[in-house]
């Protein structure tokens, strides 16, 4: 079923389409699929289409939309009728991306303390993290950073007291009810439990991000040797 869409202006050059008010895997998947289809239809004057948990935002050039009338009203009407024409149910495109992870050790210094705090062995913590299927609700924060839903509550852990000035690219980490991969080396306060040799953000590739909203994600445990061969000596 297609949830009803509500329209809000965000300034004079963006329009927010709201489909609900709470985090829900099926809802974000629906929004992500709509975003992709809308992008493929190349609406005139629209420069960016950004899906999030409950909303889809269109960034537009007000000078290129609805000459004569209100650009906002004109675009809201066009997009509203486009959404109404979309088939119900045909929303989830179901791509699963596997991310190899070398857990613990120098790649994930917080894994052992996290497991101990949560009353788990390191192997149990790895098993729980890698046997769960996660969903990409949206990307943001830095290029290629995916907000993943679905972390098992047994692995939930607050951020570190003192953030690290540098968290290496590829670090797999946990903060509260979320898990994520750092696509770039940035400062960060999340609990780092492992590292992937995969480059999640590649500015010269098309698309530049391995993950997209609506994808399912599985983490696959790998050894340090496998990490070295997959990264080709990069790490």
């Amino acid at each position, binding site marked *: 079923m297609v949830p009803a869409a509500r329209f*809000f202006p*965000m300034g004079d050059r963006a329009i927010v389409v709201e489909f609900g008010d709470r985090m829900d895997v099926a809802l974000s998947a629906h929004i992500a699929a709509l975003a992709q289809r809308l992008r493929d239809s190349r609406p005139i004057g629209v420069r*960016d289409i*950004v899906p999030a*948990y409950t909303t889809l935002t269109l960034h537009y050039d007000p000078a290129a939309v609805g000459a004569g009338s209100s650009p906002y009203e004109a675009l809201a009407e066009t997009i509203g009728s486009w959404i109404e024409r979309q088939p119900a149910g045909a929303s989830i495109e179901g791509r699963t991306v596997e991310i190899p992870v070398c857990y613990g050790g120098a790649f994930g210094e917080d894994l052992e303390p996290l497991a101990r705090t949560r009353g788990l062995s390191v192997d149990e913590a790895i098993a729980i993290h890698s046997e769960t299927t996660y969903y990409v609700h949206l990307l943001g924060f830095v290029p290629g950073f995916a907000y993943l839903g679905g972390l098992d509550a047994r692995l939930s852990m607050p951020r570190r007291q003192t953030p690290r000035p540098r968290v290496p690219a590829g670090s797999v980490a946990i903060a509260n009810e979320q898990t994520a991969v750092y696509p770039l080396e940035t400062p960060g306060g999340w609990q780092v439990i492992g590292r992937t040799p995969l480059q999640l953000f590649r500015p010269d590739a098309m698309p*530049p991000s391995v993950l997209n909203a609506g994808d399912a994600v599985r983490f696959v445990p790998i050894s340090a040797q496998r990490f070295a061969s997959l990264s080709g000596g990069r790490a």
Partner: protein
Amino acid sequence: MSITVLKPGMLTTVQDGGRFGFQHFGVPVAGAMDDFSHRVANILAGNEQDAATLEITLRGPRLRFDDDALIALCGAELSPRIGGTAVPAGKPLHVRAGAELGFGESMAGCRAYLAVHGGIDVPVVMGSRSTYDTAHIGGVEGRALREGDVLPVGDGDAPPYPGLRLQLEHARHAFAAPKWSVNQHGEKLGRSPQVVRILPGRHWDAFPVAARDTLTGSAFRLAVESNRMGCRLDGPAVMADGSLEILSEAVSFGTIQVPPSGKPIVLMADRQTVGGYPKIADVAGIDLHLLAQLRPGDRIRFELISLAQAQALWRKREQEIITIREAVEKHLAE
């Protein structure tokens, strides 16, 4: 054709109209902070309006033109000089090969734009030349200019203003400029407080009346921590209702977010693509360039207008740019 960076200045970056089409991957738009000055500088230099320019912040660089060049400066008044002679803004300049452009005291505004005929020709990354240094993309190796960088300039077509070029051969200075200039809003840069028009934001109605009144009824100052990501405002706290729960969603150029501290942040060119703080208002597009020109400590007030007003004002701005372009075009063959 190239420009050599003798001194980089405080923060000089290559910027164009911005990197659109990749925000859903979390890639910020970046681009010129003051899009108006950036576009007018390009028009004067005979470029497309979104060609890459240099965005020069407060303390300018020292640059050497390795070949004859046609340039234009717009935006902040940062005392540009060539060979000891003050260089006028808001008009095209033919400069001689070997000429050195330096900057002095910052008189008004924060960011100047240097356009060069042919555009700054760094590699295009994801459809744009704009520098976004957090992810090391665009510009010169994804970073601000450094001493010794050599900036390639695009070939372009034959530079306009042939008469001006002839004039340069007999000029006393290393540059030649026409008598005419365009109005590039220089008079608006020094206003205090700067008045910036805003529209009610996504969560305007969810903010207590007191918070909205504080935003529209107080003067704020631009905090020193402000940068290309956001203008941070010092002043009375704008407090959200503590029960307001926000799920992260897209934000825009000019969105005013209010973190728990109550200190508003106006999101600017290098903003992240999504945000999780309540959004009380959005700056109208017409006034974004005024925000981009604020200096730390400058005073600012907000004035509420409607969406219809904001979009009508933006239409006028586009008209104004068309008028400037048409006026400049009359001189191109001179």
